[in-house]
């Protein structure tokens, strides 16, 4: 089972938001936190959707598509 690039794109945004927490002034950290939470939510949702779709379609063909 493999995830496409899209869930990873959202996970990378989560990581960037969290890495920026330290340099962000305390007053504005809620922006990083809320955006990290939102992007992580999309990562989980998109990853779950892809994994469930792969499981539903049975064993994948060698090229990853449906036979």
């Amino acid at each position, binding site marked *: 089972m493999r995830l496409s690039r899209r869930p990873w794109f959202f996970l990378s945004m989560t990581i960037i938001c969290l890495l*920026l927490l330290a340099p962000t002034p305390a007053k*504005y950290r809620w922006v990083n936190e809320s*955006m990290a939470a939102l992007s992580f939510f999309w990562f989980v949702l998109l990853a779950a959707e892809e994994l469930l779709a792969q499981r539903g379609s049975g064993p994948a063909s060698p090229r990853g598509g449906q036979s």
Partner: protein
Amino acid sequence: MTVTIAFIVLVALAFDFFNGFHDAANSIATVVSTRVLTPQLAVVWAAFWNFVAFLIFGTAVAETISKVVKPGVLTNAGIFAALIGAIAWDIITWVLGLPTSSSHALVGGLAGAAVAIGGWKTLITGEYQKIFVFIVLSPIVGILLAFTLMTAVFWVFHKYRKVDKLNRGFRRGQLFSAAAFSLGHGGNDAQKTMGVILALLVANNVVPANSDVPIWVVLSAHLAIALGTLFGGWRIVHTMGSKITKLQPVGGLCAETAAATAIWGVTLAGIPVSTTHTITGGIVGVGTTQRLSAVRWGVAGRVVWAWVLTIPGAFVMAWLVSLPFRGSL
């Protein structure tokens, strides 16, 4: 002295005009590319909302901009060099067709002039830290809000079969989202020029150090940015509206609403962000709802390079312009 101040105020307003000219694309690219408005009507629409933004937003961003350099460092020649540096950078990126940020060009220009005068210690690092963080955060906010909004719209309307009627609704909705974005653009970007003019007036003892921004400064800054928008920058409209991803009215509506929400929030909080960064993020977010390959990452990558280079580029320009004035600084 008065003539010098008036001349630098005019240069600042010219920068503001060019900011509107350069960033007009951001306000209207999506409404033009989705054919909701003709290019001529779109610029009038955006310019109007750019101008009336002064009725809604305060001057928090102007105050932040006037504080990026320690008080008393920038004299008339320094502020002049900062403005010329920022304008020069804007012109270079405009010629290359890159949607860079006039705001960050101004911040880079102010830093370049201040460092030329008094070295690195003249910069207020806390303010620059805030600006640097939001250089990265603002497109991310645009991407996430646009993706979320677009997905929500899909969920709500996916069973609705009257596609024509739906499209008409989204096209009308784009008029409001473009207006909201133009208001945010006018509010955030015009205030940066106000901040520079305020710093100039304080440096020349025309107004006291803790003074509010005079109303004539507020009105003239909004008028300049609105006129700049009216004249528009068509090269960048093309990059923003069609090269990053292909947009439908619903996509344009979501991208602009997401960007407008983000810009309104930061403007009220007094953070100078790039409207260009935010709308680019919004457009990428909408493209991502289809698939990542719907976004032309090559163009988006060029945009990112322009962002990375803006502050250093304007810094160097302003530093170079400062050199002939060094004796008088």
